[in-house]
Protein backbone atom coordinates (compact mmCIF):
# COMPACT_ATOMS: atom_id res chain seq x y z
CA UNK A 1 0.00 0.00 0.00
CA UNK A 2 2.67 2.45 1.01
CA UNK A 3 5.17 1.56 -1.65
CA UNK A 4 2.93 2.51 -4.55
CA UNK A 5 3.33 6.21 -5.16
CA UNK A 6 0.07 7.87 -5.95
CA UNK A 7 1.83 9.14 -9.06
CA UNK A 8 -0.92 8.26 -11.48
CA UNK A 9 -3.26 10.55 -9.67
CA UNK A 10 -0.93 13.52 -9.31
CA UNK A 11 0.14 14.21 -12.85
CA UNK A 12 0.42 17.71 -14.16
CA UNK A 13 0.36 19.80 -11.04
CA UNK A 14 1.57 23.34 -11.03
CA UNK A 15 3.73 23.35 -7.98
CA UNK A 16 6.06 26.24 -7.28
CA UNK A 17 4.34 28.65 -9.60
CA UNK A 18 1.13 28.67 -7.62
CA UNK A 19 2.94 30.19 -4.66
CA UNK A 20 3.62 33.40 -6.53
CA UNK A 21 0.83 35.81 -7.15
CA UNK A 22 0.63 36.22 -10.89
CA UNK A 23 -2.50 36.76 -12.95
CA UNK A 24 -2.27 33.15 -14.14
CA UNK A 25 -1.84 31.82 -10.62
CA UNK A 26 -4.92 33.78 -9.56
CA UNK A 27 -6.90 31.32 -11.62
CA UNK A 28 -5.55 28.41 -9.58
CA UNK A 29 -4.70 25.02 -11.09
CA UNK A 30 -7.19 22.79 -12.84
CA UNK A 31 -7.78 21.17 -9.44
CA UNK A 32 -9.91 24.22 -8.61
CA UNK A 33 -12.63 22.34 -10.48
CA UNK A 34 -12.94 20.01 -7.48
CA UNK A 35 -13.90 22.96 -5.30
CA UNK A 36 -16.78 23.64 -7.69
CA UNK A 37 -17.56 19.92 -7.58
CA UNK A 38 -17.87 20.12 -3.82
CA UNK A 39 -20.56 22.78 -4.07
CA UNK A 40 -22.37 20.75 -6.69
CA UNK A 41 -22.34 17.82 -4.25
CA UNK A 42 -23.75 20.01 -1.50
CA UNK A 43 -26.49 21.57 -3.60
CA UNK A 44 -27.37 18.28 -5.25
CA UNK A 45 -29.11 17.45 -2.00
CA UNK A 46 -30.52 20.88 -1.33
CA UNK A 47 -31.40 22.14 -4.79
CA UNK A 48 -34.43 23.91 -3.39
CA UNK A 49 -32.13 26.69 -2.18
CA UNK A 50 -30.93 27.21 -5.72
CA UNK A 51 -34.44 27.33 -7.10
CA UNK A 52 -35.56 30.02 -4.67
CA UNK A 53 -32.92 32.34 -6.11
CA UNK A 54 -34.28 31.54 -9.53
CA UNK A 55 -37.66 33.12 -8.82
CA UNK A 56 -36.38 36.19 -7.05
CA UNK A 57 -35.90 38.21 -10.26
CA UNK A 58 -39.50 37.62 -11.28
CA UNK A 59 -40.68 39.07 -8.01
CA UNK A 60 -38.44 42.10 -8.44
CA UNK A 61 -39.49 42.75 -12.00
CA UNK A 62 -43.16 42.27 -11.28
CA UNK A 63 -43.32 44.30 -8.08
CA UNK A 64 -41.05 47.19 -9.00
CA UNK A 65 -41.33 47.12 -12.76
CA UNK A 66 -45.07 46.72 -13.14
CA UNK A 67 -46.16 48.11 -9.79
CA UNK A 68 -44.15 51.32 -9.95
CA UNK A 69 -44.68 51.97 -13.64
CA UNK A 70 -48.31 52.85 -13.00
CA UNK A 71 -47.09 55.66 -10.73
CA UNK A 72 -44.00 56.70 -12.67
CA UNK A 73 -44.28 57.90 -16.23
CA UNK A 74 -41.75 57.41 -19.00
CA UNK A 75 -38.20 58.57 -18.24
CA UNK A 76 -35.70 60.43 -20.34
CA UNK A 77 -32.38 58.63 -20.70
CA UNK A 78 -29.98 60.64 -22.84
CA UNK A 79 -31.86 61.44 -26.04
CA UNK A 80 -34.40 58.69 -25.52
CA UNK A 81 -37.60 58.38 -23.60
CA UNK A 82 -38.24 54.91 -22.16
CA UNK A 83 -40.97 53.30 -20.07
CA UNK A 84 -40.11 52.82 -16.39
CA UNK A 85 -39.88 48.98 -16.47
CA UNK A 86 -37.42 49.22 -19.35
CA UNK A 87 -35.40 51.74 -17.38
CA UNK A 88 -35.35 49.80 -14.14
CA UNK A 89 -34.82 46.23 -15.46
CA UNK A 90 -31.08 46.44 -16.24
CA UNK A 91 -30.50 48.20 -12.90
CA UNK A 92 -32.27 45.36 -11.13
CA UNK A 93 -30.23 42.82 -13.07
CA UNK A 94 -27.03 44.49 -11.86
CA UNK A 95 -28.25 44.67 -8.24
CA UNK A 96 -29.42 41.07 -8.36
CA UNK A 97 -25.99 40.00 -9.63
CA UNK A 98 -24.43 41.95 -6.78
CA UNK A 99 -26.71 40.47 -4.13
CA UNK A 100 -26.24 36.91 -5.29
CA UNK A 101 -22.47 37.26 -5.44
CA UNK A 102 -22.28 38.90 -2.03
CA UNK A 103 -24.43 36.28 -0.35
CA UNK A 104 -22.12 33.49 -1.47
CA UNK A 105 -18.92 35.35 -0.81
CA UNK A 106 -19.81 36.78 2.61
CA UNK A 107 -22.23 34.63 4.64
CA UNK A 108 -21.40 31.31 2.99
CA UNK A 109 -17.66 31.89 2.95
CA UNK A 110 -17.63 33.06 6.55
CA UNK A 111 -19.49 29.95 7.66
CA UNK A 112 -17.10 27.65 5.81
CA UNK A 113 -14.09 29.55 7.09
CA UNK A 114 -14.95 29.94 10.77
CA UNK A 115 -17.38 27.18 11.62
CA UNK A 116 -17.39 24.35 9.11
CA UNK A 117 -13.59 24.47 8.64
CA UNK A 118 -14.25 23.28 5.11
CA UNK A 119 -10.95 24.52 3.76
CA UNK A 120 -8.76 22.92 6.43
CA UNK A 121 -9.59 19.55 4.93
CA UNK A 122 -9.32 20.79 1.36
CA UNK A 123 -5.84 22.20 1.99
CA UNK A 124 -4.58 18.87 3.31
CA UNK A 125 -5.07 17.54 -0.23
CA UNK A 126 -3.12 18.65 -3.31
CA UNK A 127 -5.37 21.70 -3.64
CA UNK A 128 -3.81 25.09 -2.86
CA UNK A 129 -5.26 28.31 -1.53
CA UNK A 130 -5.28 29.60 -5.11
CA UNK A 131 -7.38 26.59 -6.10
CA UNK A 132 -9.80 27.25 -3.26
CA UNK A 133 -10.23 30.89 -4.23
CA UNK A 134 -10.55 30.11 -7.92
CA UNK A 135 -12.96 27.25 -7.25
CA UNK A 136 -15.22 29.27 -4.99
CA UNK A 137 -15.20 32.09 -7.54
CA UNK A 138 -16.06 29.60 -10.25
CA UNK A 139 -19.01 28.31 -8.27
CA UNK A 140 -20.18 31.80 -7.48
CA UNK A 141 -20.11 32.70 -11.18
CA UNK A 142 -21.95 29.53 -12.12
CA UNK A 143 -24.66 30.36 -9.69
CA UNK A 144 -24.82 34.03 -10.70
CA UNK A 145 -24.90 32.93 -14.31
CA UNK A 146 -27.92 30.80 -13.61
CA UNK A 147 -29.75 33.64 -11.87
CA UNK A 148 -28.80 36.20 -14.49
CA UNK A 149 -30.12 33.89 -17.17
CA UNK A 150 -33.45 33.49 -15.42
CA UNK A 151 -33.62 37.24 -14.88
CA UNK A 152 -33.01 37.91 -18.56
CA UNK A 153 -35.64 35.39 -19.55
CA UNK A 154 -38.05 37.25 -17.32
CA UNK A 155 -37.02 40.57 -18.87
CA UNK A 156 -37.59 39.21 -22.34
CA UNK A 157 -40.93 37.69 -21.38
CA UNK A 158 -42.13 40.96 -19.89
CA UNK A 159 -40.91 42.92 -22.90
CA UNK A 160 -38.37 44.92 -20.89
CA UNK A 161 -35.42 44.03 -23.10
CA UNK A 162 -35.18 46.95 -25.46
CA UNK A 163 -32.72 45.84 -28.14
CA UNK A 164 -30.93 42.66 -29.11
CA UNK A 165 -27.88 44.24 -27.51
CA UNK A 166 -29.50 43.14 -24.27
CA UNK A 167 -27.91 39.70 -24.76
CA UNK A 168 -24.61 41.38 -23.93
CA UNK A 169 -26.01 42.11 -20.49
CA UNK A 170 -25.38 38.49 -19.63
CA UNK A 171 -21.56 38.58 -19.62
CA UNK A 172 -21.76 42.03 -18.07
CA UNK A 173 -23.88 40.75 -15.22
CA UNK A 174 -21.23 38.05 -14.70
CA UNK A 175 -18.60 40.77 -14.58
CA UNK A 176 -20.58 42.55 -11.86
CA UNK A 177 -20.88 39.25 -9.98
CA UNK A 178 -17.15 38.64 -10.38
CA UNK A 179 -16.22 42.03 -8.94
CA UNK A 180 -18.57 41.78 -5.96
CA UNK A 181 -17.71 38.17 -5.27
CA UNK A 182 -14.01 39.01 -5.12
CA UNK A 183 -14.49 42.06 -2.92
CA UNK A 184 -16.94 40.14 -0.76
CA UNK A 185 -14.48 37.30 -0.18
CA UNK A 186 -11.64 39.68 0.60
CA UNK A 187 -13.83 41.57 3.08
CA UNK A 188 -15.02 38.36 4.71
CA UNK A 189 -11.46 37.32 5.54
CA UNK A 190 -11.31 40.36 7.84
CA UNK A 191 -14.60 39.72 9.64
CA UNK A 192 -14.29 38.48 13.23
CA UNK A 193 -17.87 37.48 14.02
CA UNK A 194 -21.44 37.69 12.82
CA UNK A 195 -21.70 41.15 14.37
CA UNK A 196 -19.27 42.50 11.81
CA UNK A 197 -21.83 41.71 9.15
CA UNK A 198 -23.74 44.78 10.32
CA UNK A 199 -20.89 46.82 8.89
CA UNK A 200 -21.11 44.92 5.63
CA UNK A 201 -24.86 45.57 5.41
CA UNK A 202 -24.17 49.21 6.15
CA UNK A 203 -22.16 49.36 2.93
CA UNK A 204 -24.46 47.24 0.79
CA UNK A 205 -27.91 48.60 1.56
CA UNK A 206 -27.22 52.29 0.74
CA UNK A 207 -25.35 51.22 -2.38
CA UNK A 208 -28.34 49.14 -3.45
CA UNK A 209 -30.76 52.02 -2.82
CA UNK A 210 -28.77 54.97 -4.10
CA UNK A 211 -26.78 53.64 -7.06
CA UNK A 212 -29.21 54.97 -9.67
CA UNK A 213 -30.90 51.60 -9.81
CA UNK A 214 -34.43 52.94 -9.40
CA UNK A 215 -34.10 56.44 -10.85
CA UNK A 216 -31.63 58.38 -12.98
CA UNK A 217 -28.51 59.85 -11.43
CA UNK A 218 -29.65 63.32 -12.50
CA UNK A 219 -32.04 63.60 -9.53
CA UNK A 220 -29.05 64.10 -7.22
CA UNK A 221 -27.14 67.32 -6.65
CA UNK A 222 -23.76 67.45 -8.38
CA UNK A 223 -21.60 66.44 -5.40
CA UNK A 224 -23.74 63.43 -4.58
CA UNK A 225 -23.67 62.36 -8.22
CA UNK A 226 -19.89 62.35 -7.99
CA UNK A 227 -19.99 60.13 -4.89
CA UNK A 228 -22.46 57.69 -6.43
CA UNK A 229 -20.39 57.46 -9.61
CA UNK A 230 -17.55 56.02 -7.52
CA UNK A 231 -19.53 53.05 -6.21
CA UNK A 232 -19.05 49.72 -7.96
CA UNK A 233 -22.78 49.09 -8.22
CA UNK A 234 -23.29 52.36 -10.12
CA UNK A 235 -20.59 51.21 -12.55
CA UNK A 236 -22.49 47.97 -13.07
CA UNK A 237 -25.88 49.65 -13.43
CA UNK A 238 -24.57 52.20 -15.92
CA UNK A 239 -22.87 49.47 -17.92
CA UNK A 240 -25.93 47.25 -18.12
CA UNK A 241 -28.41 50.05 -18.76
CA UNK A 242 -26.31 51.46 -21.57
CA UNK A 243 -26.01 48.04 -23.15
CA UNK A 244 -29.68 47.20 -22.78
CA UNK A 245 -30.71 50.43 -24.46
CA UNK A 246 -28.06 49.99 -27.13
CA UNK A 247 -26.59 53.43 -26.43
CA UNK A 248 -22.88 52.77 -26.13
CA UNK A 249 -20.44 55.34 -24.81
CA UNK A 250 -16.74 55.23 -24.10
CA UNK A 251 -17.47 55.64 -20.42
CA UNK A 252 -18.85 52.11 -20.46
CA UNK A 253 -15.43 50.68 -21.28
CA UNK A 254 -14.29 52.50 -18.17
CA UNK A 255 -17.10 50.92 -16.14
CA UNK A 256 -16.12 47.45 -17.35
CA UNK A 257 -12.44 48.07 -16.61
CA UNK A 258 -13.31 49.38 -13.13
CA UNK A 259 -15.22 46.16 -12.34
CA UNK A 260 -12.56 43.87 -13.82
CA UNK A 261 -9.75 45.54 -11.87
CA UNK A 262 -11.78 45.56 -8.68
CA UNK A 263 -12.36 41.82 -9.12
CA UNK A 264 -8.71 41.01 -9.76
CA UNK A 265 -7.53 43.08 -6.79
CA UNK A 266 -10.16 41.40 -4.61
CA UNK A 267 -9.03 37.96 -5.74
CA UNK A 268 -5.37 38.71 -5.02
CA UNK A 269 -6.25 40.09 -1.59
CA UNK A 270 -8.42 37.07 -0.81
CA UNK A 271 -5.61 34.73 -1.76
CA UNK A 272 -3.08 36.49 0.40
CA UNK A 273 -5.42 36.72 3.37
CA UNK A 274 -6.64 33.12 3.18
CA UNK A 275 -3.06 31.91 2.93
CA UNK A 276 -2.27 33.70 6.16
CA UNK A 277 -5.45 32.54 7.92
CA UNK A 278 -5.49 28.91 6.82
CA UNK A 279 -1.79 28.09 6.54
CA UNK A 280 -0.22 29.99 9.45
Amino acid at each position, binding site marked *: *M*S*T*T*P*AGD*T*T*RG*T*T*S*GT*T*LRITPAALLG*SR*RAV*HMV*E*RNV*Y*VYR*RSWIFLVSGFFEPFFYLLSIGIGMSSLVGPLRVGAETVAYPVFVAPGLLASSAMNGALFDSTFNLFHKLKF*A*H*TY*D*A*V*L*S*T*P*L*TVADVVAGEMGWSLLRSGLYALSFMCAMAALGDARTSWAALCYPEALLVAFAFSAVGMATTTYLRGWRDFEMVMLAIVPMFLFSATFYPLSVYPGWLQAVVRLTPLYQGVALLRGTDLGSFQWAMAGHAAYLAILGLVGLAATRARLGRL*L*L*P
Partner: protein
Amino acid sequence: MVAAARGTPGAVASAAAPSAGAQDTALVVARGLVKRFGQFTAVGGIDFEIVPGECFGFLGPNGAGKTSTMRMISCMSPASGGTLRVLGMDPATDGPRIRARLGLVPQEDSLDLELTVLDNLILYARYFDIPKAEARRRAASLLELAQLSERARDKVESLSGGMKRRLTIARALVSQPDLLILDEPTTGLDPQARHLLWDRLYRLKQEGVTLLVTTHYMEEAEQLCDRLVIMDHGRFAAHGTPLELIGRYSTREVVELRFATPREQADALALGETAQRMEVLPDRILLYTADGDAVLAEVHRRGYAPVSELVRRSTLEDVFLRLTGRRLVD
Protein backbone atom coordinates in the same frame (compact mmCIF):
# COMPACT_ATOMS: atom_id res chain seq x y z
CA MET B 1 5.31 -4.89 23.30
CA VAL B 2 5.55 -4.57 19.59
CA ALA B 3 8.48 -2.24 19.58
CA ALA B 4 10.80 -4.78 21.14
CA ALA B 5 10.45 -7.07 18.17
CA ARG B 6 11.77 -4.46 15.78
CA GLY B 7 14.29 -3.30 18.38
CA THR B 8 17.02 -0.99 17.22
CA PRO B 9 20.40 -1.60 18.80
CA GLY B 10 21.74 0.61 21.55
CA ALA B 11 20.90 4.18 22.38
CA VAL B 12 20.58 6.56 19.45
CA ALA B 13 22.40 9.85 19.57
CA SER B 14 19.70 11.78 17.77
CA ALA B 15 16.32 10.82 16.43
CA ALA B 16 18.12 9.81 13.29
CA ALA B 17 17.02 6.67 11.52
CA PRO B 18 18.35 3.41 12.97
CA SER B 19 20.13 2.04 9.93
CA ALA B 20 23.05 3.66 8.14
CA GLY B 21 22.24 5.27 4.81
CA ALA B 22 18.62 5.58 5.83
CA GLN B 23 18.79 9.27 4.91
CA ASP B 24 18.51 8.37 1.25
CA THR B 25 15.30 6.43 1.72
CA ALA B 26 13.85 8.44 4.62
CA LEU B 27 10.36 9.78 3.95
CA VAL B 28 10.92 12.79 6.17
CA VAL B 29 14.22 14.44 7.06
CA ALA B 30 14.33 17.46 9.36
CA ARG B 31 17.46 19.37 10.34
CA GLY B 32 17.31 22.19 12.86
CA LEU B 33 13.60 22.62 12.10
CA VAL B 34 12.13 25.76 13.67
CA LYS B 35 8.60 27.20 13.83
CA ARG B 36 7.95 30.65 15.25
CA PHE B 37 4.66 32.47 15.70
CA GLY B 38 5.71 36.09 16.24
CA GLN B 39 7.81 36.11 19.39
CA PHE B 40 6.76 32.60 20.40
CA THR B 41 8.91 29.68 19.36
CA ALA B 42 6.70 26.60 18.98
CA VAL B 43 9.42 24.34 17.60
CA GLY B 44 12.97 25.23 18.59
CA GLY B 45 15.28 23.36 16.24
CA ILE B 46 14.68 19.61 15.99
CA ASP B 47 16.34 16.86 13.94
CA PHE B 48 14.66 13.63 12.95
CA GLU B 49 14.17 11.13 10.19
CA ILE B 50 11.26 8.87 9.45
CA VAL B 51 11.98 5.74 7.42
CA PRO B 52 9.52 3.71 5.34
CA GLY B 53 7.40 1.19 7.19
CA GLU B 54 7.98 2.44 10.70
CA CYS B 55 5.60 3.97 13.16
CA PHE B 56 7.16 7.13 14.54
CA GLY B 57 5.64 8.78 17.58
CA PHE B 58 5.69 12.36 18.80
CA LEU B 59 4.86 12.47 22.49
CA GLY B 60 4.61 15.55 24.60
CA PRO B 61 2.36 17.69 26.75
CA ASN B 62 0.01 20.24 25.20
CA GLY B 63 1.91 23.08 23.59
CA ALA B 64 5.09 21.04 23.19
CA GLY B 65 5.14 21.74 19.44
CA LYS B 66 3.82 18.42 18.15
CA THR B 67 1.01 19.81 16.05
CA SER B 68 3.22 22.57 14.64
CA THR B 69 5.68 19.90 13.53
CA MET B 70 2.89 17.83 11.95
CA ARG B 71 1.57 20.87 10.10
CA MET B 72 5.02 21.67 8.72
CA ILE B 73 5.43 18.10 7.48
CA SER B 74 1.99 18.23 5.85
CA CYS B 75 2.97 21.45 4.05
CA MET B 76 0.21 23.35 5.83
CA SER B 77 2.53 25.66 7.72
CA PRO B 78 5.81 27.10 6.43
CA ALA B 79 8.94 26.38 8.49
CA SER B 80 10.59 29.42 10.08
CA GLY B 81 14.06 27.92 10.01
CA GLY B 82 16.14 24.81 9.36
CA THR B 83 15.56 22.38 6.54
CA LEU B 84 12.74 19.94 5.93
CA ARG B 85 12.43 17.38 3.16
CA VAL B 86 9.27 15.35 2.80
CA LEU B 87 9.26 12.46 0.31
CA GLY B 88 12.44 13.96 -1.11
CA MET B 89 10.77 17.29 -1.86
CA ASP B 90 10.68 20.76 -0.36
CA PRO B 91 7.35 21.65 1.30
CA ALA B 92 7.87 25.33 0.45
CA THR B 93 7.71 24.70 -3.29
CA ASP B 94 6.27 21.21 -3.79
CA GLY B 95 3.29 21.36 -1.43
CA PRO B 96 0.69 19.92 -3.80
CA ARG B 97 2.96 17.08 -4.95
CA ILE B 98 3.88 16.15 -1.40
CA ARG B 99 0.32 16.32 -0.12
CA ALA B 100 -0.75 14.09 -3.00
CA ARG B 101 1.13 11.29 -1.22
CA LEU B 102 0.21 12.08 2.40
CA GLY B 103 -2.78 11.05 4.43
CA LEU B 104 -3.65 13.50 7.17
CA VAL B 105 -5.77 12.91 10.26
CA PRO B 106 -5.95 16.30 11.96
CA GLN B 107 -6.48 16.80 15.66
CA GLU B 108 -9.93 18.28 15.12
CA ASP B 109 -12.17 16.40 12.72
CA SER B 110 -12.55 18.46 9.59
CA LEU B 111 -15.20 16.37 7.90
CA ASP B 112 -17.54 18.12 5.50
CA LEU B 113 -20.68 18.44 7.60
CA GLU B 114 -22.81 19.39 4.61
CA LEU B 115 -22.16 16.03 2.93
CA THR B 116 -23.05 12.42 3.63
CA VAL B 117 -20.55 9.89 4.97
CA LEU B 118 -20.07 8.35 1.53
CA ASP B 119 -19.81 11.70 -0.27
CA ASN B 120 -17.14 12.81 2.19
CA LEU B 121 -14.93 9.97 1.02
CA ILE B 122 -15.74 10.31 -2.67
CA LEU B 123 -15.23 14.05 -2.72
CA TYR B 124 -11.96 13.82 -0.80
CA ALA B 125 -10.75 11.30 -3.36
CA ARG B 126 -11.74 13.73 -6.10
CA TYR B 127 -9.49 16.38 -4.52
CA PHE B 128 -6.68 13.92 -5.32
CA ASP B 129 -7.85 13.68 -8.95
CA ILE B 130 -8.95 10.09 -8.46
CA PRO B 131 -11.52 9.19 -11.14
CA LYS B 132 -15.09 8.97 -9.92
CA ALA B 133 -15.59 5.24 -10.43
CA GLU B 134 -12.35 4.45 -8.63
CA ALA B 135 -13.26 6.92 -5.86
CA ARG B 136 -16.57 5.11 -5.35
CA ARG B 137 -14.87 1.74 -5.23
CA ARG B 138 -12.30 2.89 -2.66
CA ALA B 139 -14.93 4.67 -0.60
CA ALA B 140 -17.01 1.51 -0.36
CA SER B 141 -14.10 -0.63 0.78
CA LEU B 142 -12.91 1.98 3.29
CA LEU B 143 -16.38 2.30 4.77
CA GLU B 144 -16.23 -1.41 5.35
CA LEU B 145 -12.84 -1.08 7.04
CA ALA B 146 -14.15 1.75 9.23
CA GLN B 147 -17.31 -0.25 9.99
CA LEU B 148 -19.46 2.56 8.67
CA SER B 149 -21.06 0.91 5.63
CA GLU B 150 -24.50 1.10 7.18
CA ARG B 151 -24.15 4.83 7.73
CA ALA B 152 -23.00 5.59 4.18
CA ARG B 153 -26.07 7.70 3.30
CA ASP B 154 -26.27 9.51 6.61
CA LYS B 155 -25.12 13.05 7.18
CA VAL B 156 -21.82 13.28 9.02
CA GLU B 157 -23.43 15.38 11.74
CA SER B 158 -25.36 12.39 13.05
CA LEU B 159 -22.24 10.28 13.72
CA SER B 160 -20.75 9.72 17.16
CA GLY B 161 -17.27 10.98 18.01
CA GLY B 162 -15.72 7.57 17.46
CA MET B 163 -17.43 7.15 14.10
CA LYS B 164 -16.29 10.59 12.96
CA ARG B 165 -12.74 9.72 13.92
CA ARG B 166 -12.91 6.44 12.00
CA LEU B 167 -14.33 8.26 9.01
CA THR B 168 -11.52 10.82 9.19
CA ILE B 169 -8.96 8.03 9.15
CA ALA B 170 -10.74 6.28 6.30
CA ARG B 171 -10.75 9.59 4.44
CA ALA B 172 -6.99 9.96 4.94
CA LEU B 173 -6.50 6.52 3.39
CA VAL B 174 -8.59 7.14 0.29
CA SER B 175 -5.56 8.38 -1.66
CA GLN B 176 -3.50 5.34 -0.60
CA PRO B 177 -0.83 7.53 1.01
CA ASP B 178 2.82 6.63 1.48
CA LEU B 179 2.81 8.36 4.83
CA LEU B 180 -0.13 8.59 7.20
CA ILE B 181 0.05 11.46 9.68
CA LEU B 182 -2.20 11.17 12.72
CA ASP B 183 -2.42 14.08 15.14
CA GLU B 184 -3.84 12.75 18.41
CA PRO B 185 -6.07 10.21 16.67
CA THR B 186 -7.70 8.85 19.80
CA THR B 187 -8.20 11.97 21.92
CA GLY B 188 -11.75 12.23 23.17
CA LEU B 189 -12.73 8.66 22.35
CA ASP B 190 -14.17 6.16 24.76
CA PRO B 191 -12.06 3.06 25.52
CA GLN B 192 -13.96 0.83 23.09
CA ALA B 193 -13.52 3.23 20.20
CA ARG B 194 -9.89 3.76 21.14
CA HIS B 195 -9.05 0.08 21.10
CA LEU B 196 -10.83 -0.42 17.80
CA LEU B 197 -8.77 2.41 16.36
CA TRP B 198 -5.48 1.04 17.69
CA ASP B 199 -6.38 -2.25 16.12
CA ARG B 200 -6.93 -0.54 12.75
CA LEU B 201 -3.69 1.40 12.97
CA TYR B 202 -1.77 -1.69 13.90
CA ARG B 203 -3.18 -3.47 10.87
CA LEU B 204 -2.22 -0.58 8.60
CA LYS B 205 1.30 -0.75 9.94
CA GLN B 206 1.44 -4.42 9.18
CA GLU B 207 0.35 -3.62 5.64
CA GLY B 208 3.44 -1.45 5.37
CA VAL B 209 1.96 2.04 5.75
CA THR B 210 4.40 4.42 7.41
CA LEU B 211 2.74 6.07 10.37
CA LEU B 212 3.51 9.32 12.10
CA VAL B 213 1.52 9.67 15.31
CA THR B 214 1.27 12.32 17.97
CA THR B 215 -0.44 11.31 21.16
CA HIS B 216 -0.51 11.71 24.86
CA TYR B 217 -1.77 8.23 25.45
CA MET B 218 1.40 6.48 26.51
CA GLU B 219 -0.21 3.09 26.18
CA GLU B 220 -0.95 3.87 22.56
CA ALA B 221 2.62 4.97 21.92
CA GLU B 222 4.06 1.94 23.68
CA GLN B 223 1.98 -0.45 21.60
CA LEU B 224 2.19 1.25 18.23
CA CYS B 225 5.44 3.12 17.91
CA ASP B 226 8.72 1.60 16.79
CA ARG B 227 10.52 4.78 17.66
CA LEU B 228 9.40 7.89 19.38
CA VAL B 229 10.51 11.26 20.60
CA ILE B 230 9.34 13.01 23.71
CA MET B 231 8.87 16.69 23.00
CA ASP B 232 8.79 19.48 25.53
CA HIS B 233 8.95 23.24 24.94
CA GLY B 234 9.58 22.73 21.23
CA ARG B 235 12.59 20.46 21.67
CA PHE B 236 13.24 16.75 22.00
CA ALA B 237 13.68 15.72 25.61
CA ALA B 238 14.41 12.10 24.63
CA HIS B 239 14.21 9.69 21.74
CA GLY B 240 14.46 5.96 21.12
CA THR B 241 12.31 2.85 21.13
CA PRO B 242 9.77 2.60 23.93
CA LEU B 243 11.90 -0.08 25.64
CA GLU B 244 15.07 1.96 25.34
CA LEU B 245 13.39 4.96 26.87
CA ILE B 246 12.04 2.95 29.78
CA GLY B 247 15.47 1.41 30.28
CA ARG B 248 17.20 4.77 30.15
CA TYR B 249 14.84 6.99 32.10
CA SER B 250 13.02 4.64 34.42
CA THR B 251 13.51 1.33 36.20
CA ARG B 252 12.03 -2.03 35.43
CA GLU B 253 9.41 -1.84 38.15
CA VAL B 254 7.64 0.71 40.29
CA VAL B 255 6.25 0.27 43.82
CA GLU B 256 3.36 2.61 44.62
CA LEU B 257 2.55 3.12 48.29
CA ARG B 258 -0.40 5.04 49.71
CA PHE B 259 -0.54 5.96 53.38
CA ALA B 260 -3.47 6.78 55.61
CA THR B 261 -2.22 10.22 56.74
CA PRO B 262 0.25 12.80 55.49
CA ARG B 263 2.25 12.25 58.71
CA GLU B 264 2.64 8.55 57.97
CA GLN B 265 3.70 9.38 54.45
CA ALA B 266 6.29 11.84 55.80
CA ASP B 267 7.66 9.13 58.07
CA ALA B 268 7.96 6.78 55.13
CA LEU B 269 10.31 9.07 53.22
CA ALA B 270 13.22 7.14 54.71
CA LEU B 271 12.24 4.35 52.30
CA GLY B 272 13.97 6.30 49.55
CA GLU B 273 17.21 4.42 50.29
CA THR B 274 15.60 1.09 49.39
CA ALA B 275 15.02 2.11 45.77
CA GLN B 276 16.99 3.61 42.88
CA ARG B 277 14.78 6.66 42.89
CA MET B 278 11.85 7.90 44.91
CA GLU B 279 9.10 10.27 43.87
CA VAL B 280 6.84 11.87 46.45
CA LEU B 281 3.38 12.86 45.30
CA PRO B 282 0.69 14.51 47.44
CA ASP B 283 -1.14 11.21 47.96
CA ARG B 284 1.49 8.53 47.46
CA ILE B 285 5.13 7.55 47.20
CA LEU B 286 6.62 5.96 44.09
CA LEU B 287 9.71 3.78 44.48
CA TYR B 288 11.57 3.03 41.24
CA THR B 289 13.47 -0.24 41.36
CA ALA B 290 14.58 -3.27 39.38
CA ASP B 291 12.87 -5.64 41.83
CA GLY B 292 9.54 -4.42 43.15
CA ASP B 293 8.79 -7.46 45.32
CA ALA B 294 12.10 -7.15 47.13
CA VAL B 295 11.47 -3.48 47.88
CA LEU B 296 7.95 -4.22 49.09
CA ALA B 297 9.30 -6.96 51.38
CA GLU B 298 11.77 -4.43 52.80
CA VAL B 299 8.93 -1.95 53.35
CA HIS B 300 7.08 -4.55 55.43
CA ARG B 301 10.27 -5.66 57.25
CA ARG B 302 10.76 -2.07 58.38
CA GLY B 303 7.28 -2.10 59.84
CA TYR B 304 5.48 0.34 57.48
CA ALA B 305 1.82 -0.36 56.85
CA PRO B 306 0.60 1.47 53.76
CA VAL B 307 -3.18 1.39 53.15
CA SER B 308 -2.53 0.33 49.59
CA GLU B 309 0.50 -1.04 47.82
CA LEU B 310 1.09 -1.85 44.18
CA VAL B 311 4.01 -3.36 42.33
CA ARG B 312 3.84 -2.71 38.59
CA ARG B 313 6.06 -2.61 35.55
CA SER B 314 7.47 0.72 34.58
CA THR B 315 5.71 2.27 31.60
CA LEU B 316 6.33 5.00 29.09
CA GLU B 317 4.12 7.17 31.24
CA ASP B 318 6.73 7.10 34.00
CA VAL B 319 9.35 8.20 31.49
CA PHE B 320 7.07 10.88 30.15
CA LEU B 321 6.26 12.32 33.55
CA ARG B 322 9.89 12.24 34.60
CA LEU B 323 11.03 14.10 31.49
CA THR B 324 8.22 16.61 31.13
CA GLY B 325 7.36 17.05 34.79
CA ARG B 326 4.08 16.72 36.63
CA ARG B 327 3.12 20.35 36.41
CA LEU B 328 -0.10 21.10 34.59
CA VAL B 329 0.32 22.41 31.08
CA ASP B 330 -2.37 24.44 29.39
